[in-house]
């Protein structure tokens, strides 16, 4: 699986959302979005879920959010979690 990394920790609102949606539109079956953010981006997660994507979120010990989104909802995203 190809990882498309989006480090949004230093991006000003609403850039993280804007860039993530751009990536989601181009995602294929063999790739997934790996987003690192300072907040839990609920609107993005809901949008992705409504479109049938697979979504996994995890808050690290350093209070950073790791959000994994794949076009193929059958993929076990836990395996790709990098914390």
């Amino acid at each position, binding site marked *: 699986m190809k990882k498309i990394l989006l480090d949004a920790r*230093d*991006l*000003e*609102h*609403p850039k993280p*959302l*804007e860039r993530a*949606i751009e990536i*989601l*539109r181009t*995602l294929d079956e063999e790739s997934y979005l790996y987003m690192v953010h*300072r*907040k*839990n*981006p*609920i*609107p993005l997660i*809901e*949008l992705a879920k*409504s*479109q*049938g*994507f*697979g979504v996994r979120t995890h808050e690290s010990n350093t209070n950073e959010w790791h959000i994994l989104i794949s*076009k*193929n*909802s059958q993929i076990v995203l836990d395996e790709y979690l990098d914390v």
Partner: protein
Amino acid sequence: MFSQQGLSLEQAPPIFVVLRFFFAGSLFGVMAGIALLFYREEIFDPSSVAAVTFTHILTLGVMLSFMFGALFQMLPVIAGVVLSTPVQKANFVQYPMIVGTLMLLWAFNFDAQSWIYAVAALLLGLSILYASGIMLQALIKLPNHSASSKGMTAALAALSIAVLLALYLVLIRGGYLDGSHYLAAKEAHYSLALFGWIGVLIISISFQVIEMFYVTPPYPPAASRTLAFVILGLLVLFGILAFVYPQLRPLKESLMALLLIVYALITLRRLSQRKRPITDATVWFWRIGMGSLVLSMLMLVARQFVSTEWIVGTSAIFYAAFALSVVFAMFYKIVPFLTWFHLNSQGYFAAPMMHEVIHPKIAKRHLWIHLATLVCLLLSQAFAPLTLVAALLMIFSFGQMSYLILHARRVYIKTQKEGERFDMGA
């Protein structure tokens, strides 16, 4: 928008609820400019009809419209408050508020018949108390409060008391009550409306949005946890004491000045600590707002020692600049984002990008117009003809905002009608 609390945009109201409050606020802003065109330097005499009218166009017409619009949008997503049937609630609030404001302005200027005051009071009182009531009720029920939701609660409580005092004042002006406590009630009304409502609401929103929009360190917890309720508590305490000890007013104003200056300096410091030092117009709107707040409060303190019309007028101009600067900063963040995100969440492939809804260059131009308006108003106290320029700039400023809202609405409807919905195919 800005969801951090586990709730989504789906729980926010339809975009048009927010846009129509903003549109009404912008039209009242145009009206403020027209009023300035007619009244000119009369507005600098605090006891004049011109000053009372101009103040109420700005506070009731402009600020209240923008702030209610922002609250309808932000309460669900910032504070986690769900307002059911938002369109119906917005109708109950907005239409009587507009008619009531216009009737009150009419009564101030043309026809002080008691029934006009009574109807204006009824419409404004019911609509504003209804809005603050439903919002307060939902906020109080929240199991977990953030600094912002606590602050919003304090601000809405201040608004409710300010409105009750306003009803009392209107009933006196309409001849329904004797005016034995008129001055103390008027003083408490102004303080609660300006510091308690406008000031505390801006403070509580900034606790959330400064960190999020501009990637800054958070506010110190000591400030974000306590400031809003300390301000509200002091205003209520001094408001009650003023009925017996009116001479305490300088102490109250000095304490307000101290607290608000500390807040403004922390905000300016946070804005200088942004992780990405890219500066857009909205950062500068915040900076102008905070700078204006500091200067307004310094003038408020100076008034205790040298009370001249110039100092009183300058303090008022800077306070208005504080509030309007923050409104403009939020406007240029909220309108493009909402338009873009609502369309994206509905799956429109051709949803315009945010800069296509409102281009950052327009915000930058507005910044210069806003600054020029502020400078003209300040100088017009010494050179009266400049009020004409300030009035025209104000009309242009709010006229442009009205146009931008209509443009965003047009873009939104056009995309919904003609746009192709994307299916990400997942």
